[in-house]
């Protein structure tokens, strides 16, 4: 992300957390991009260069790598932070679980950003569950300002108890803007010292038991002091609302707007895990209690006696989807026996996301559909998931799964002795580096035969154009060709997807190699820089695209190719939207009448 000039201290939640990391004195910061967490690292890098800081920052190849690099700095008595989205934490779950046992010397803060809704993820899972699963404390900020302070508090708590600490913001903290006061940038940590202690850092199962006992002691002690903070405490309140994160903010606004501060008590939870004993007293002392949290129920499940407790578990609040001021207001009004104001949501519709005009992925998907129309197309996580719109994406499970699913398809058809259809996995360059490499090694080693189409646009585009291991960096640039060769692939071709006829031909050859000759995995690298983040495209031809008289309004270019620059005009004829058209010329190959020309 390019650092933009900031006017005043109005910060995006992600920028505020970056300041928390810097002011907290971190010396190693690592991340893998993912919505809604991506802008934290961009902001850390921006502050680092603006203030001439020497902290080590890296966009790691995946979340597990980022976690382990940052964690080790905290083994050495120094402060570190690692940032990722909630599903990224699944990838880093292994080191998370184990590091809770080993603990840390220097403060170690894990920021896992959740996506209730979800807006831009394959699940709306709750990272606070993983904090409680790992038995580490988790902060749940309700605003950008608070998120920054909680990052700093997390460093302190982490150091005090020698335990990794999670900060779990959600979308409307990460992508909210607010005035945020800035503090001083501290000097950072001293020299790293590695105190050899094999019973801790290399503990065998027998010592792991002791570490677990120690972890339980830490969690119990943190819980003792962790009780809900009173916000509105009217005498004889019939309802107590206990809330954390953004739902707390909704509750505050809604109770005030309803004028119910004199009837409804409001308590705020900063640390949803581990909860102390006082929450049970609160529940006992009120007629009813409403727990507001998202996306799952973490606080609610820690309450011992839930008979008087309402929340997501008894469906007072729907148990899926994000909380909104509307469903919070509805829940409170219903419990108070008040009339609920119903206002319909905006009608569905609107415009769905689409690949950009001139996106090289669209060209690649078009060629794929032309070359192997009867194929099965496992795909992956990134902008190119929007290949769905071109019906060129059949599966999307999680990072790197496309390659394993292609292998799984092959093994299933082969085992059954059935005719094997063309199988083409599509994966982006960054996703390939992230989790695709072990998958490819496995496919090759297990003798799977399929086509792997690597969509190489040179960047992590969906999340804002972060670098990949093939970008320039402090060390060597990785080359996808060599990497695939090293994985044992013998069929490797590189092509610019704008050359649609050549890509069609190569896909047919690759399918022949993989399917008819059964010789293994055939790799095609479709390489063309991202039009948004890839810098200037020097090779693009001159001349405007026009629609000639041969056009018979068949709708192929507007509906099936679905380029945003080709819109249906009044009489159903396609019209080129000049403001959007980038003159890529890919549509010249798309028109069945060859009516689209370059002038």
């Amino acid at each position, binding site marked *: 992300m390019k650092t*933009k*000039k*900031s*006017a*005043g201290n*109005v910060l995006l939640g992600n920028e505020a957390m970056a300041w928390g990391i810097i002011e907290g004195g971190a010396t190693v910061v690592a991340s893998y991009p993912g*919505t*809604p967490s*991506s*802008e934290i690292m961009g902001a850390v890098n921006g502050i680092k260069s603006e203030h001439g800081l020497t902290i080590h920052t890296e966009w790691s190849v995946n979340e597990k790598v980022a976690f382990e690099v940052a964690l080790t700095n905290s083994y050495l008595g120094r402060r570190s932070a690692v940032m990722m989205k909630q599903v990224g934490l699944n990838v880093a779950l292994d080191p998370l679980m184990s590091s809770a046992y080993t603990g840390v010397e220097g403060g170690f803060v894990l920021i896992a950003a959740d996506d209730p809704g979800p*807006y*831009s993820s394959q699940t709306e899972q709750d990272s606070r569950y993983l904090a409680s699963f790992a038995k580490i404390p988790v902060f749940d900020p*309700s*605003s*950008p300002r608070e998120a920054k302070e909680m990052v700093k508090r997390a460093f302190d708590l982490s150091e005090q108890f020698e335990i990794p600490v999670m900060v779990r913001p959600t979308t*409307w903290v990460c*992508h*909210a*803007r*607010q*005035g945020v006061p800035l503090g001083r940038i501290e000097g950072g940590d001293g020299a790293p010292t590695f105190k050899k202690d094999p019973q801790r850092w290399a503990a065998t199962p027998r010592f792991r038991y002791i570490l677990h006992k120690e972890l339980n002691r830490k969690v119990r002690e943190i819980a003792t002091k962790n009780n809900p903070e009173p916000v509105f405490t009217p005498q004889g309140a019939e309802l107590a609302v206990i809330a954390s994160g*953004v739902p*707390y*903010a*909704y509750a*505050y*606004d*809604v109770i*005030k*707007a309803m004028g119910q501060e004199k009837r409804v008590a409001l308590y705020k939870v900063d640390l949803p895990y581990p909860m102390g004993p006082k929450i049970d007293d609160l529940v006992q002392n009120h007629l009813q209690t409403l727990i507001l949290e998202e996306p799952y129920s973490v606080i609610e499940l820690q309450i011992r006696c839930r008979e008087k407790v309402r929340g997501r578990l008894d469906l007072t609040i729907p148990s899926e989807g994000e909380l*909104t*001021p*509307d469903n919070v*207001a509805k829940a409170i009004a219903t419990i108070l026996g008040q009339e609920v*104001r119903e*206002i*319909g*949501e*905006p*009608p569905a*519709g*609107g*415009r*769905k*996301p*689409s*690949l*950009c005009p001139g996106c090289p992925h669209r060209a690649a998907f078009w060629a794929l559909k032309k070359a192997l129309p009867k194929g099965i197309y496992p795909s992956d996580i990134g*902008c190119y*998931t*929007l290949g769905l719109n071109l019906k060129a994406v059949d599966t999307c499970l999680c990072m790197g799964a496309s390659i394993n699913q292609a292998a799984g398809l092959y093994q299933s058809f082969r085992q059954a002795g059935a005719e094997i259809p063309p199988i083409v996995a599509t994966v982006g360059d960054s996703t390939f580096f992230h989790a695709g490499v072990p998958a490819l090694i496995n496919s090759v080693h297990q003798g799977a035969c399929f086509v792997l189409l690597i969509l190489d646009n040179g960047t992590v585009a*969906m*999340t*804002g154009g972060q670098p990949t291991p093939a970008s320039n960096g402090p060390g060597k640039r990785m080359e996808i060709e060599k990497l695939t060769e090293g994985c044992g692939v013998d069929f490797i071709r590189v092509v610019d997807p704008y050359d649609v006829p050549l890509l069609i031909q190569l896909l047919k050859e690759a399918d022949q190699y993989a399917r008819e000759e059964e010789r293994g995995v055939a790799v095609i690298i479709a390489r063309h820089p991202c039009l948004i983040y890839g810098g200037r495209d020097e090779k693009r031809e001159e001349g405007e695209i026009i629609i000639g008289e041969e056009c018979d309004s068949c709708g192929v270019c507007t509906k099936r190719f679905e380029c*945003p620059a080709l819109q249906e005009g009044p009489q159903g004829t396609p019209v080129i939207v000049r403001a959007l058209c980038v003159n890529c010329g890919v549509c010249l190959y798309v028109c069945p009448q060859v009516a689209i020309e370059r002038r």
Partner: protein
Amino acid sequence: MDLQMVIVGLGGEGIIFMTRVLVEGFYRSGHPVISTETHGMAMRGGSVTSQIKIGDYQSPLIRYGEAGMLLGTSVVEAQRNRPFLREGGTLFMNTDQQGDYCVDATKIAHGLGNPRGGNLVLLGYVLAHLAPAISLEPFLEVVKGLSPERFLSGNVKALQEGWRVALKADKKRRKGKGIRRHG
């Protein structure tokens, strides 16, 4: 000031930039403010929404039926998101259609030789309806701070022109049926 605003449009139209100008401008004007914006997959040309709350608010999301102002960079998105508006709230649209609070910001921006400046014309137009509770100065400062050098003077002019057009339209309206104030 107590005001809830919603901005709607399509990904890539510059909604985030508009939101930043408003939020930082209100902040500089001394008003507490919190806002949201859309990132990620929805940004790829899909429908996007920004919400801005000025006043004693803790959360950035606006309930349906509570926005005092709804700003649409396109008519389709503006009409679809009408449920956000409270009774008596105002819908501002960038459109070539005639109507109260409609402004052909795109055309005005073209006239200024800044075809990308339509959003800022619309913003200037909207902000004028909050005068005299706010002045344009802090917002101009923010635009200057956020604009790349080559767009700086064009962007400043666009914001000023929107403000001017609104005051002119307001005068006309006052001659007719009286004016509506916001904020």
